[in-house]
Every structure is written in structure tokens, then in C-alpha cells.
């Protein structure tokens, strides 16, 4: 392995490798808009191909040490995973329904705690979906992969969740650290094993103020996006700095204020869309209201079919436009900002990694979709 000896002979203080995002914003916007329109035409079935397209775009425009990773997942796999997940979920729903009836008989709304069972299932799905995404990520001809057990993860997540509940959120940082340790310990790049060195205490030190004054933001609600953006930026930085693959480690210089703009812009767009839809509804009312006294004319409107059709069209357009905005800011822009703040140390030690690991099935993504816990 002359390569390794060469690396070992390098003088200390090799500069860290940068991570850069080179994606064109307009391209992403047209990708997301077209995807939203196709989602409408296909009654939502296009979502599998849209998330695939978005991931392919983000992965392939992120340059790590000059080379972009590749997302090798496909929409068809997600569709199949979703159908399999449905086949498994349906009998579970039926059992849930029957148990729910029994519980309700015992006491009204006693079946509500059964939702906890679905929360656990959701945690399992999150773990398995991460496994799918990771095994579809290939960099320099070697795939990332993951072992470990989704149920072991769900179990940990539930217990930590209980602790967070009991401490009114105080234990959140330790929960994140513990869960991330589990996930990263079971993540691999070829034969390089991952690990997570972020400490719960570190995250707590960086975020306790926001936790303590969080309730204030709920009262003075314009503070809420600021608090949340600040919290997210600190958390991202802590998370990235904790990631290890063998000797490779990440470092992030994401400023605390880096995400403020994203939240404000999304809120701005939301308000703008509200104004537009308000004007649209007003226009529809003006054009279609019958003659006669104002009150009677207004009462007749809900029975006016063209008016109701126009309202539904307006509502769908609003939802689609807002979805595009959310994807643009919270997926693409967030990704771009976080990625470009990152540097990779000791990447030389990943220069001759032996390939290992198999691609996992998309069943986990199917569960995540069916249970509405889907992530990126």
C-alpha cells in the first residue's frame, strides 16, 4: 500500500478538504415545480420519483474533496417499498382497530395511548429509511451502509423520549447524542466504521438558553422563527462536528445566524400567498355573487357550484406553490448552506477503503411514507 505510506509521510497540518455545493438554484426550482405539478396530476403517486430526483440533485452537486457522491436509489424502488409496507400495515391497522374498540368499551378515549405503539413503529421506520438512503449513497465507487436493528433503535428512542417528556425537554440534548451514537456506530463507508463523538452535554451547553427562554417565544411569537433557526444552526454544527468515519472527521463553521433568512423567507412567501389567495377569493366572490341584498347573496355562495370549483382550484394552487417554496428553502437552501460550511479532516485515510455492505430494501421508506414520518 504505497498510497498509505505516502500519506503517512505527508507533513502534518494537511489542510482539510472542503465541501462545496454547486447546484443551480433555478434548476432545483424547476425540478420542484414540475414535480409538484406531476404530483397533482398523478394523485400523489409521483412523490416517489420527486424525492428521488431531489436527492439525486442534492447528492450529485455536493462536492466532497472535489468528488460528488451519487444517489443510486430509484423512484420505482420507493413505490415497491411503499406497496410492501402497506401490505404489512393493513393487518396491523385492523388489529389496532379491534384493540381500540376494546379499550374504548372500557373507558371513552382509552384507545389514545395505542398511538404510542405507532410512534414506536414510526421510529423503527425512521431508522430503516435512513438505512435505505445511506446504502444508496456511493462515493468514489464505494457505498455507505448500515447495520444495527431498527427495533433496538425504536426502543432506545422511546425510553429517551420518555425521559425528555419527564424533564420537559431538558434531556433533549442527551437523547440526540445517544440516538446519533447508535446510528453512527452502525454506519459504515466500505470497511470504515462510523462513530459519533458529539456529547449531550456539549449540545446542552450550546442550547440551554433557547430551551429556558423557549416559552417566552411562544408568547411573543415573532421570536419563534428566530429561536428555532438559531437552535437548528447550533444543532447542525454540533452534529456535523461529531461525525467520524474511521479517522475521517467533519468540522462545521455554520454561523448561528445562518438559517434565520430561510425561516423568514418562507414566512414571507406564506404571507404573500395568503394575500394572493385572499385577493383571488375576493375576486371570485365579486364576479359570482348574485344580485340582491348583500347578506342573501353571500349566503347563496356556498351553493354556487362554479364558485366552489374555483375555490378548490385556488386551494390546490396554494398548497402546491407552498410545497415548492418549502422544498426550495428547507431542502435545497438548507442543504447548500450546511454543506458549504463543512470541512473534512484526514480524508486521506479514506483514500483506499475496501468496498463492503449491500444495498438495503426500500421497505423502511415505505413505512416512513405510510406513517407520515418521511424525512429528506
Amino acid at each position: 500500500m504505497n498510497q498509505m505510506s505516502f500519506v503517512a509521510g505527508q507533513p502534518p497540518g494537511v489542510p482539510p478538504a472542503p465541501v462545496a455545493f454547486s447546484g443551480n438554484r433555478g434548476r432545483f426550482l424547476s425540478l420542484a415545480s414540475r414535480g409538484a405539478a406531476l404530483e397533482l396530476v398523478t394523485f400523489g403517486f409521483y412523490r416517489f420519483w420527486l424525492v428521488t430526483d431531489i436527492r439525486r440533485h442534492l447528492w450529485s452537486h455536493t462536492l466532497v474533496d472535489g468528488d460528488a457522491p451519487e444517489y443510486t436509489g430509484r423512484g420505482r424502488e420507493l413505490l415497491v417499498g411503499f406497496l410492501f409496507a402497506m401490505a404489512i400495515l393493513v393487518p396491523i391497522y385492523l388489529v389496532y382497530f379491534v384493540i381500540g374498540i376494546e379499550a374504548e368499551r372500557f373507558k371513552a378515549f382509552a384507545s389514545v395511548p395505542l398511538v404510542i405503539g405507532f410512534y414506536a413503529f414510526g421510529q423503527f421506520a425512521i431508522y430503516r429509511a435512513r438505512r435505505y438512503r445511506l446504502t444508496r449513497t456511493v462515493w468514489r465507487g464505494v457505498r455507505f451502509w448500515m447495520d444495527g436493528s431498527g427495533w433496538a433503535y425504536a426502543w432506545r428512542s422511546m425510553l429517551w423520549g420518555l425521559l425528555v417528556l419527564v424533564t420537559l425537554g431538558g434531556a433533549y440534548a442527551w437523547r440526540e447524542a445517544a440516538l446519533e451514537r447508535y446510528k453512527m456506530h452502525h454506519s459504515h463507508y466500505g470497511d470504515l466504521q462510523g462513530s459519533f463523538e458529539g456529547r449531550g452535554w456539549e449540545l446542552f451547553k450550546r442550547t440551554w438558553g433557547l430551551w429556558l427562554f423557549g416559552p417566552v417565544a411562544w408568547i411573543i411569537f415573532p421570536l419563534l422563527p428566530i429561536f428555532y433557526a438559531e437552535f437548528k444552526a447550533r444543532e447542525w454544527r454540533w452534529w456535523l462536528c461529531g461525525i467520524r468515519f474511521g479517522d475521517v472527521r467533519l468540522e462545521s463553521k455554520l454561523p448561528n445566524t445562518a438559517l434565520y433568512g430561510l425561516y423568514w423567507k418562507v414566512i414571507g412567501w406564506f404571507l404573500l400567498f395568503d394575500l394572493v389567495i385572499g385577493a383571488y377569493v375576493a375576486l371570485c366572490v365579486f364576479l359570482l355573487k348574485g344580485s340582491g341584498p348583500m347578506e342573501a347573496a353571500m349566503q347563496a355562495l356556498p351553493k354556487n357550484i362554479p364558485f366552489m370549483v374555483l375555490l378548490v382550484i385556488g386551494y390546490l394552487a396554494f398548497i402546491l406553490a407552498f410545497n415548492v417554496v418549502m422544498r426550495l428553502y428547507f431542502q435545497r437552501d438548507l442543504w447548500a448552506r450546511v454543506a458549504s460550511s463543512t470541512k473534512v479532516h484526514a480524508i486521506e485515510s479514506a483514500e483506499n477503503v475496501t468496498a463492503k455492505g449491500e444495498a438495503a430494501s426500500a421497505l423502511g421508506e415505505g413505512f416512513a411514507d405510510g406513517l407520515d414520518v418521511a424525512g429528506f
Partner: protein
Amino acid sequence: MEFTANTAEQAAPDPVRSAVYYDGKSSRKRTVVLAFGDKLVISGEGLPSESWDYADIRRADGAPGVLRVSCLSASPLARLEIRDATLAADLESRCARLGDNSLDGRSIARIVGWSLAAAASIVLVILFAIPLAADRLTPLVPASFERRLGDAADAQMKAVFGGHACKAEAGQAALVKLVDALRKSSGLDLAVEPAVLDTPIPNAFALPGGKVYLLKGLLAKADDPDEIAGVLAHELGHLAHRDSVREVIYNGGTSFLVGLLFGDVTGSSTLIFASRSLVTATYSREAEQNADSFAIEVMQRLGRSPKPMGELLFRVTGKEGDNPLSILASHPLTEDRLKRMSELDRQAAGPPLLTRTEWTELKSICGPVSKT
């Protein structure tokens, strides 16, 4: 670019024909030389020479300005990366099926087509298959399970309406007498437990398993025992036809399929949907019509006219036909129901179902009625 040891040590390759190669077995970056013959030949130092069939070469996602390709017959993760635009164009021109992996217009059209077909089939299943399945499955549901459904709905009902059933003894006796007369006349073999709930909403409903609730709001609007008798007979009709079980199967199946379409198949919404149907008794119009037929038959067998029931409903809802959205209504239009019952109106032949005193007692079951 830090082309490491390998690059530096090699005799400088023709820059135009050089590319980066990953063999898919390790992450080692190798500089290779490409030769375009019958096949694409990839050769580099310390590397067994690879030859790729042009027809097997596919484009893989790469950063802008980099042509990244894979080969179907090579190691699945082996990748060749070409940064030189001329060389990339040269290779592209030789690989006819380079873009076969990408999602072109035709595959999108196929996705749209299949989605529309799936949506159409789901709609057809909702319209035809599920009602049929509900009809066929309902007789198979054991009565004990139906009673459990009813008990569960009852607990929710009581929680929603404050759980207050009116307890005046004489009134309750009159109600039981009325319901018993109806039940015997209809031949319904089921223990029916009637009660009046203290809520101003004018409605009545039957829960699976035999609980029949009359809401005080409806009782207050009634002028005659026959009006209430008709309504109660209608509810007994739902019990006799086991409409709740049918409705639970129907709603559960429908909301699951709709969820399948839009991806929101969380158990909670299905359950909410199904249990809401229990509580609010939104039976379908067909079930309502059948229950009306049942009520008419029972009243006629008792020698009473069904018309008063129609009049009471009309008093509650008013004329409904002006609403063009009435196709979406869960019940038949009140005026149509009144018309149907009026046509069957005839002079009362049987004895009154309640004495004047019993009727007064029933009216004041929730406490004295304020005369308006």
C-alpha cells in the same frame, strides 16, 4: 486537484485520453487511459485492463462538468469519470444507450398513465366493490362484536354529550312501552335499550347492539306520539339492517383506499373516520331509505299513519331541495321523505300507541317543558 502518488509516478499519460477510474472494490482513485476500439478499453498502472461494451455503458449522476459512467457488465459500482469535454463528447457519441437509466418524457407519461389507472380503479372499488363487500361481510360479523362496537361508541357519545340520559321514571316507562310496541310489531329479535339524551340537538340515532337514543331537541319539536314513534321505528330499522357494522366496514375500507392514493394512511385518521361514523350515524341514503321503509311498514302494521314522522322531519330541516350540493347529503331530501309518507297516509285504524298522560310524561322526561 491532488492526484496523489500514482499520478505523479506514472509516465505522464496523454492528457486528452486520461480519465479517473474507480473499480468499485475500493475507493482508490486511479488515473487511466482510454482507448476507443471495438470496445472501450480502460488501462492503468497496476490495473487489469478492463474493456466495456459501448452498449452497456450508462450515465451515472455526476457533478456538472464531469461525465460519470458505469457499465452493466462490470462491477456495479465501478465508475469512470471524464472531465475533459472533448473526450466526454467522444465517448457519448459512441454509447447509444447512455441515457437509458434516466427518466425521460415517455417514462413520466407511463407513471402518469399508471397513476390515473390506479386512481380510476380505486374509485371503482370505492363505488362498487366496497359496498358489495360490506353487504357480504356484515352478516358474518358476530352479534357480540356488534355489541362491543356499540359499547365503545356509547362511551364516546357520553363523553361528547356530557353523558346525561334523562331519568324521569314515568317518561322512561312511556318510552319503553312505545319502543316495545314497535319492536314487537316489527318482529325484531334484539334487546333494545332506549333513552332520551339531554341535548338541544334535534336528532335520534341507534348504536350497534341495541341502544337507541332520542335527543331532547327532537322530542321538544314533536306534537304527537306517532311522530316520535315513526322516528324510533326508523332507528329500529337501522338496527334490524345492522347498518352500523356495514358503515364501519365501508368507511374503514374507503378511507384506507383514499389514504393509499394520497399517501396519508396513518391509522389515526382511519380510526377517526370509522368511529365518527359510529357516533354521528351518517348512514348512507340507501340505508336511510330502507330504514324509512321499515318504519312505514311497522307503523302500518300497528294501524298508524307514517305521515306524522315526515311532518316532524320537515319541521326540523325545512325544505332542502334548493341546495345544488344535495347530491352530497347523507339523507334523502326531507321533502321527498315527507311526500313518500304522505302518499301512504290513512285514517288511524289501531289504538293510539301512548295515552295522553304517557305522552305528557314522555315530553317532560328531562324535566318540565316550558310552553312556547
